């Protein structure tokens, strides 16, 4: 029952959004959080990263976006706050302290005349400390209370999905109204192409025909370059032409990658089946699960 949540790409986040990201690896983390930080720094937002183990957690802004973090740290637009100083008391997660920190940060940003405030905090290790789970959940409720009414602040709470149980993830997710995901590689209102990380691939929505083969080829190349099995989530795809199917098969054939078409509509699956017997032994239909 995910219909209670709003899904937004990181570029669509709005002030007042208290968003949730459960990532499945460094690549996904850096892709989403990197875009969140870049959008803030390139705009005029105060950007606050509450980190467990300091700088190492930050996506590499220099290689990704040619942004120099030092410049922004010096100017005060970027702040990296250790969790010890912001939300732990004697090594145990302390919701009250976290809330105080957050309120201070928001107030200060306002007086410093930033356009907005972006906060992100990785809850993964907090979860593992002392009264972790309950503390984190309480904290999430308080963050929600602080951010939601704000007209200038937005926050992303992150957790490494691989280090939590399914129940913990569900409990955390339910504390958030917005699920944040990667920005699309391409979106012109007719077709959107968004990278996915678990499984690795692309999510296609809308209509894909010859007019958009070039952008599709470029996106496909990006994901194939990442290596391994490629999943194309077609649940939102209303139309695909034979040329694009052929490009998918071509990618699989030339790069020796497995290309799996997940959740196609019945009509789309029929077309794939009709032409697949001989031409497209390289493609297979899947259900979104990596194998």
């Amino acid at each position, binding site marked *: 029952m995910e219909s209670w949540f709003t899904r937004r790409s990181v570029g669509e986040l709005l002030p007042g959004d208290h968003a949730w990201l459960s990532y499945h690896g460094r690549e996904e983390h850096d892709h989403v959080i990197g875009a969140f930080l870049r959008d803030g720094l390139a705009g005029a937002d105060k950007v606050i990263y509450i980190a467990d183990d300091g700088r190492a957690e930050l996506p590499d802004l220099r290689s990704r976006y040619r942004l120099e973090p030092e410049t922004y740290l010096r100017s005060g637009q970027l702040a990296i706050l250790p969790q010890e100083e912001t939300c732990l008391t004697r090594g145990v997660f302390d919701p009250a302290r976290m809330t105080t920190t957050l309120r201070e940060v928001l107030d200060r940003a306002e007086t410093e005349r930033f356009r907005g405030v972006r906060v992100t905090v990785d809850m993964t290790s907090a979860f593992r400390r002392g009264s972790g789970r309950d503390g984190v959940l309480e904290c999430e409720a308080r963050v929600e209370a602080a951010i939601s009414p704000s007209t200038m602040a937005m926050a992303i709470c992150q957790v490494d999905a691989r280090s939590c149980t399914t129940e913990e993830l569900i409990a955390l997710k339910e504390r958030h109204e917005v699920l944040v995901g990667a920005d699309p590689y391409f979106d012109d209102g007719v077709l959107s192409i968004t990278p996915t990380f678990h499984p690795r691939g692309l999510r296609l929505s809308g209509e894909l025909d010859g007019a958009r083969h070039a952008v599709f080829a470029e996106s496909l190349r990006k994901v194939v370059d990442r290596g391994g099995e490629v999943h194309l989530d077609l649940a939102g795809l209303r139309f695909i032409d034979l040329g694009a199917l*052929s490009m998918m098969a071509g990618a699989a054939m030339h790069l020796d990658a497995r290309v799996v078409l997940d959740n196609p509509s019945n*009509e*789309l699956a029929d*077309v794939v089946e009709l032409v697949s017997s001989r*031409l497209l032994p390289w493609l297979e239909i899947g259900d979104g699960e990596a194998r």
Partner: protein
Amino acid sequence: MTRLIHQVLMYDNEKDILDTVVPFLQEGLGAGEAVLTVGTAPNLSCLRQALGTDSDAVEFADSASWYVQPTRTIANYSSFIAENATARIRVVAEPGWETGTPAQISEWTRYESIINEAFADISASVLCLYDRRTTHPGLLDGALRTHPEIVEGACPRCNDAYLDPAAVCASVDRDPLPPPPPGAVRLPIDDDDLSALRSFLAGHARHHGMSRPRVNDLLVATTEVATNAIRHGRSPIGCQMWREDDDLIVQVTDAGHWQPDPVPGFVPPDPGSLSGFGLWGVRMLCALVQLRTGPAGTTVRLHVPCR
């Protein structure tokens, strides 16, 4: 023996079938060949009975599902050949068609002719069956022009009426297409974004009560043909659509002079190469595809059944 033997038997009664077909099948089974029998339901049951336990080694298929349209039939045979790549092949092939529109009769005649070229290098014996009592004379005439050997009284002989596949294909594509009816709806194609074309087609197709899967076939096939016209043809490019009995017809015209191969898009492209996929895919999706090219430009007419 490494070449295709393509024979026809025009029968008048079940005895003709039993006298010719049963020994033909038994010979293949005795030689360890991969044996396939495609036939009408009554003939399949008659052959099964006559073969007794030998029938276990024969693959049977019903004509009604095997011979839906030529490109799919060729794909079915290609799959059987691929699945039995190491064996010599023996096929009894009864199309089971009795009649059709003139265009369908021409297309099936072309199909029988293409077999000679497409499978020329396959080590196979194919015996086609036509029921002389019920089959349209046009189809029987076509079968006479497209089988190098004819079987009479259980003996094969060289067929003097046989024509080269290129000649048969050229004759099928020589007749001009009848003009679209006055009520045909039309839309110019002046943008490479074809989503507007698809909305136009889907709206009219639903108005004609076309089922959802067939609407999708129509959209995929038309998009492919229109994309081809945009990329390789010349403007002006236009699309027209009308109803003809149980089919919807979509026609895409452009001012270019496409000169396709003599037998374009009937044979499944090699899985190792992605060229030739488009037109083959279009033929797989449609009941009939008609191509005409001349000084006035290129016309591709697609027939898709409403159901």
